[in-house]
C-alpha cells in the first residue's frame, strides 16, 4: 500500500523514473492476499435470484462486470484493483495516465479520420490495407447489389485477396432477381453450395415476381427457396463479415437491405483421434480435435441434457476467435459463469490463438507455478466436470478444453480412476501421490542424505553409497545438476526431434545417463537410479502443466538441500505450502477441499466407491449439492449407508 514516489530528481533537477522492481521492493504489494473474486461469498441462492431476472444478453458486458464487481466487494477487493490499478499518490496518478489498448480496427479508423485530408500519397500506397479498412465499411448491409459488391471488395481487399469467392447469379423467378453468393474458398463445403444454394435458387425456383416489394425478396428466398438447414438473416455489415469468415456463405439479393448467412462450413481438420497426453486403458479413447463444433459436439453427445448450455463469445478485435462457455444450468453456480464470462469478455487482443493463451489471460495468478485451470483433451472428463458444477471453455480450434475452477487435487486425478473399481482407483492415486513427492523431492533428499545426514541410512548402505561415490571427482550437487540437465535435455529433444529419427534419442539418452557416465566416473551408479526414478515419477504426474511446475520446483529444492540439507527442504516446503494455501482458482482456494476443509465426496486423496460419490464438491457452491441418491444400491445391505445418512431420497 505505501507507494514511494514514482520519480526522483537528478542533479540537474530533471525527473528520473524509478524502475518498477525497485518501487515494488519498497512498497507494500498485497496481491498475495487480495482476490478479485471469491466464489464462497457468492452463494448459489443470491446467484439464482439474479438468474431469475432473466438471462443476460451476450453483449451486456458492462452490466455483467458490474454485478461481478459488486459481488467481489465482499472480499474488499475492488474491480479496479483487480485490473491492476494501485492506490497511488496523487502525483503518480497525474503523471501516468491509464493507457488502455485500442482495438486495431478502431485505431486504424481513428488514424484515418484524424489525417483523412492531408494523408500523404506515400502512406496510402504503402499501406493500402490500413487505408481502406474499417473506415470504408458500411454500417448496414446496402440494399443495392452493386454497392454490396463494392463494399465486399473493399472489405476483403479484392482483387488481391484470392480466397474470397464472389458468385453472381440470377434467382430463377420471372423476371430474374440479381443475387450474389460470397464465401471463403477452403472454409466451405462446395458441394453444399452447389446443391443447396445455387441449384435451388437458379434452377428450381420459378415463381412470379408479384410476391411483394423489392425489399421483401430476401424473405421469400429465406422462407421458400433456400433449403439450407441453418440460415441467419443479417443486416449489420460487421456480422455479415464475421459470418463469411466463419465459413458461412452469404447470399445477397438485389433490393433487399439484408443478407442471408447459410451454414456451409466444411474446412479440413484432423478427425477425432486418440488422446495424445491423457491415454487410458479402461475408458473412452476419443479426444478433442482442431474443430470447434466437433469439440462441443463431442461433449454434448456424451452429456445429453437439455440443461447443457453453450454460450458463444468472440475474442479478438482484428481476427476473431470463437470462445464457448459451457455449463449445466441448474447445477453450476451462476456467479461462476458470470465471472468466467466477465474475464473472457475483458480480454482485448488482436488475435487469440489458443486455449493456452486464453488460460493466461483469465487465471487468477498467472505467475504461479501451479496451474489454476485444468486443460484436458478428454471429452468424457469435461462432461463429468460439467456435471459436478464446473464451467468448460472451448477456444477456437484448440484441441484442449479448459475446465474451471481447478483445485490442486483434481490435477492429480485421471479419468481412469473413476472407470476402474474404487480400490484400484485408490491404488493408482497413492502411486501418483508418491510420484509427486518423488519427482519433487527425491534428488533433494539424496543430496541431503549424502551431504548432511549420512547417519540416517544403515551402515552397509552408507558404505555402498560412499564406495560408489569414491571414483566421482565432483560434489554431489554438481553430479545431480548434470544428470538433471541431461534428463531435461532428453525430454525436450524427444519432443522436438523429427519422428523419423526418433529412436535415436532413446539410444543417445540411454548412453548418456546409463553405463557410459558411470564408467567414465562422472556420476555414481546410485545417482543414476535416483535420477531415473525421479524422471519416471515426473512422467507419472497426469497433468502436463503441474508436471512443469514440479520440474521447476525440483531445482529450487535441490538448491535448498545442497545448502542446508533437510532444514532447507523443510523451510522451502513450508513456504510453498503457505503460498499454495492462499492461491485461488476462480475464487476457489486451490487446496480446497482439504485446506480449507470443505464437504466433498470421497474423491480427494483417494477414490471412493461410485455408490458413495453422492455429493458434488461444495467448494464449487453448486445449486444442487447431490448428484445421486444417498442409497444407490438399495438391494444390498452391505453397502447401505449408516443411519445418519440413511435417507432413501435426495433432499
Amino acid at each position: 500500500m505505501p507507494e514511494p514516489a514514482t520519480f526522483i530528481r537528478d542533479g540537474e533537477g530533471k525527473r528520473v523514473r524509478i524502475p518498477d522492481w525497485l518501487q515494488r521492493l519498497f512498497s507494500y504489494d498485497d496481491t498475495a492476499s487480495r482476490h478479485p473474486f471469491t466464489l464462497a461469498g457468492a452463494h448459489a441462492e443470491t446467484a439464482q435470484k439474479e438468474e431469475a431476472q432473466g438471462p443476460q444478453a451476450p453483449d451486456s458486458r458492462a452490466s455483467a462486470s458490474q454485478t461481478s464487481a459488486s459481488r467481489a466487494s465482499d472480499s474488499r477487493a475492488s474491480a479496479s484493483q483487480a485490473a491492476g490499478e494501485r492506490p497511488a499518490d496523487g502525483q503518480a496518478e497525474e503523471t501516468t495516465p491509464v493507457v488502455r489498448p485500442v482495438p486495431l480496427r478502431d485505431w486504424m479508423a481513428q488514424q484515418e479520420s484524424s489525417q483523412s485530408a492531408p494523408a500523404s500519397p506515400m502512406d496510402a500506397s504503402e499501406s493500402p490495407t490500413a487505408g481502406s479498412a474499417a473506415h470504408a465499411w458500411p454500417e448496414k448491409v446496402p440494399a443495392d447489389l452493386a454497392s454490396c459488391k463494392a463494399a465486399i471488395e473493399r472489405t476483403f481487399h479484392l482483387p488481391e485477396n484470392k480466397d474470397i469467392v464472389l458468385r453472381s447469379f440470377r434467382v430463377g423467378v420471372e423476371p430474374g432477381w440479381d443475387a450474389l453468393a460470397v464465401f471463403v474458398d477452403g472454409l466451405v463445403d462446395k458441394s453444399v453450395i452447389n446443391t443447396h444454394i445455387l441449384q435451388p435458387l437458379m434452377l428450381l425456383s420459378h415463381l412470379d415476381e408479384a410476391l411483394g416489394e423489392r425489399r421483401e425478396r430476401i424473405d421469400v428466398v429465406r422462407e421458400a427457396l433456400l433449403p439450407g438447414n441453418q440460415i441467419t438473416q443479417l443486416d449489420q455489415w460487421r456480422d455479415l463479415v464475421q459470418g463469411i469468415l466463419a465459413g458461412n456463405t452469404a447470399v445477397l439479393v438485389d433490393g433487399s437491405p439484408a443478407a442471408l448467412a447459410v451454414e456451409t462450413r466444411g474446412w479440413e481438420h484432423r478427425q477425432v483421434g486418440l488422446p495424445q497426453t491423457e491415454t487410458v486403458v479402461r475408458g473412452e479413447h476419443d479426444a478433442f480435435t482442431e474443430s470447434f463444433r466437433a469439440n462441443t459436439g463431442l461433449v454434448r453427445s456424451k452429456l445429453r441434457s437439455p440443461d447443457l448450455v453453450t454460450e458463444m463469445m468472440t475474442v479478438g478485435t482484428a481476427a476473431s476467435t470463437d470462445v464457448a462457455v459451457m455449463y449445466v444450468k441448474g447445477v453450476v453456480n451462476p456467479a461462476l459463469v458470470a465471472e468466467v464470462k466477465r474475464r473472457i469478455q475483458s480480454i482485448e487482443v488482436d488475435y487469440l490463438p489458443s486455449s493456452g493463451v486464453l488460460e493466461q489471460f483469465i487465471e487468477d495468478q498467472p505467475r504461479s507455478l501451479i496451474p489454476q485451470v485444468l486443460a484436458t483433451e478428454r471429452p468424457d472428463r469435461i462432461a463429468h466436470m460439467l456435471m459436478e458444477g464446473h464451467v468448460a471453455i472451448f477456444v477456437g480450434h484448440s484441441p484442449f478444453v479448459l475446465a474451471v475452477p481447478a483445485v490442486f487435487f483434481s490435477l492429480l486425478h485421471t479419468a481412469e480412476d473413476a472407470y476402474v473399481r474404487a480400490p484400484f482407483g485408490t491404488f493408482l492415486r497413492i502411486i501418483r501421490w508418491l510420484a509427486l513427492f518423488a519427482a519433487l523431492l527425491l534428488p533433494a533428499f539424496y543430496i541431503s542424505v549424502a551431504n548432511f545426514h549420512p547417519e540416517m541410512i544403515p551402515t552397509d548402505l552408507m558404505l555402498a553409497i560412499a564406495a560408489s561415490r569414491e571414483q566421482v571427482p565432483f560434489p554431489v550437487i554438481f553430479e545431480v545438476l548434470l544428470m538433471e540437465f541431461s534428463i531435461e535435455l532428453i525430454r525436450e529433444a524427444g519432443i522436438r526431434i523429427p519422428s523419423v529419427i526418433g529412436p535415436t534419442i532413446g539410444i543417445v539418452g540411454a548412453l548418456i545417463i546409463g553405463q557410459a557416465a558411470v564408467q567414465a566416473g562422472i556420476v555414481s551408479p546410485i545417482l543414476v537410479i535416483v535420477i531415473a526414478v525421479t524422471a519416471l515419477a515426473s512422467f507419472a504426474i497426469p497433468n502436463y502443466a503441474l508436471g512443469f511446475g514440479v520440474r521447476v520446483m525440483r531445482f529450487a529444492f535441490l538448491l535448498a538441500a545442497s545448502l542446508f540439507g533437510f532444514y532447507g527442504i523443510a523451510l522451502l516446503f513450508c513456504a510453498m505450502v503457505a503460498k499454495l494455501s492462499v492461491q485461488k482458482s476462480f475464487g476457489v482456494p486451490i487446496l480446497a477441499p482439504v485446506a480449507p476443509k470443505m464437504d466433498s465426496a470421497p474423491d480427494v486423496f483417494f477414490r471412493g466407491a461410485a455408490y458413495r460419490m453422492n455429493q458434488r464438491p461444495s467448494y464449487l457452491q453448486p445449486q444442487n449439492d447431490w448428484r445421486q441418491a444417498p442409497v444407490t444400491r438399495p438391494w444390498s445391505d452391505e453397502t447401505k449407508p449408516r443411519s445418519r445418512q440413511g435417507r432413501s431420497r435426495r433432499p
Partner: protein
Amino acid sequence: MLKFLAAMVIPLYVLVYTALYGRWLTKRRAPAKAAAAAYALAGLSFAVSAVIFWRLFTR
C-alpha cells in the same frame, strides 16, 4: 566491522520500508498516531538491530 556493515543492510532496508509506510500514512491523512507508530516501529527495529549487531560482529 565489514561484517557489521554488511549485516546492517537488512535493518536499513526494513527501516526505509517501514518509514516509507509511515510517510504514506501521513499522505493518506491517517490519524497522527498511525504514522507516528510506523516511524517509531521503524526506528526501534533499526536501533535494536544496530546495537545487537554491533555487539555480535565487533567482538
